[in-house]
């Protein structure tokens, strides 16, 4: 029950994007195609889960003064491991991902969860927290990606769903649309579920 509570809290109740406003850079940058959003999300889930687990394992020995350096080192190592693994065993997927894998290192959610949760909780709980936070982030990316790809390209996951009559909205492909959609999404969720005062 406690693990379920941890998962629900990090994925939804305290969602990194709409509640903590973290991971905004990548939510703006990679969401013009749903496939990009999904791949980025999977990479973040994997890195969050394993880095949370490792940072939590090391927490009792890590000196406070260098804890952030250790966290960065652990996160970067896992991300590079994913990168090497993909290059060697799944080269086609690695090619599609391009610079995304490297971008995961700079995602604020990873440092955020490491500092706020993994450095104070048990390893397995930290891993569940990481999976939850990663899934919550992926969900937001997919929602924004769905709107942007549908209106910007007339397709979903690269499959054309709107016919030849559809005129693509260029703004949806470009950065401004991500700002609008993300802001609207955060506003909507906060007003609807957190009863925030406008």
């Amino acid at each position, binding site marked *: 029950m406690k693990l379920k509570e941890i998962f629900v809290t990090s994925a939804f109740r305290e969602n990194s994007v709409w509640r903590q406003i973290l991971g905004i850079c990548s939510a703006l940058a990679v969401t013009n195609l749903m496939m990009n959003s999904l791949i980025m999300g999977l990479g973040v889930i994997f890195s969050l889960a394993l880095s949370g687990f490792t940072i939590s394992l090391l927490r009792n020995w890590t000196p406070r003064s260098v804890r952030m350096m250790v966290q960065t080192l652990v996160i970067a190592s896992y991300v590079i491991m994913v990168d*090497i693994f993909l290059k060697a065993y799944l080269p086609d997927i690695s090619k599609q991902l391009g610079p995304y894998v490297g971008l995961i290192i700079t995602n604020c959610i990873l440092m955020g969860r490491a500092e706020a949760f993994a450095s104070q909780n048990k390893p397995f709980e930290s891993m569940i927290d990481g999976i939850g936070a990663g899934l919550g982030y992926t969900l937001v990316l997919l929602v924004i990606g769905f709107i942007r790809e549908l209106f910007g390209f007339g397709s979903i996951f690269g499959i054309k769903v709107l016919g030849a009559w559809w005129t693509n909205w260029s703004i949806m492909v470009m950065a401004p649309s991500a700002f609008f959609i993300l802001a609207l999404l955060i506003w909507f969720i906060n007003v609807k579920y957190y009863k925030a005062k406008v």
Partner: protein
Amino acid sequence: MNNSSFKDSNIYPILFMLVTCMFFVGILATMYRGSEKRIDEYNRNSYQKLVLDLLSESISDKTGISPDDIMGNYPKSYGNYVKESTLPGLNNRIFAAVIDSETIGYCVEIKGKGLWGSMKALVALSSDMKNLKGLSIFEQMETPGLGARIGEEWFLTQFRDIRIVKEDRVAGDYLNSFELIPEGKQADNPLQIQQVTGATITTASVTKMLRDELNSIYHAFKGQAKL
């Protein structure tokens, strides 16, 4: 007690960081060394396949074997038809499609600057280097979803079968310029290229790279032909 005082000492964070760094770097180095051969092999094969794919149309015209069969026969077909070559005064990697000692086309590696970094591509050229037969961009650092779309099929097919050299007896031969048109607009002639929406600079970088590199390749080739 002793343990606690050691953990409070100034040297402990340094030692801890050092050991952790060595541990993770060690794992990464081992993992990289272990997969290096595999990665290199994949890179070499995919590069050769790209060269063969770009030359397959010319090979197919000459031999009657379909491009799909030529690709299906890799690496045998690569060994049979493709020879790495050089041009005096040019550092680019050049591959020639040779059948019965006759060169029927070339594939040249070119490079240029994009918006965020360098990009590398392969171009297929006719045996007189006057026609661009195809383009494939295999390395670029453009914005994912925007500039990176220059690697998509619809963009690259625009560079097939274009007469790039304008022959002029008075002024000398020169290269035709590409003209950029909005994405989705029908091109009136082969030199009109639909640009990627939201990535004007990247698209212009591709056409600039092509013009600059093809110019030096053509003139190096022409210089050699005169000799």
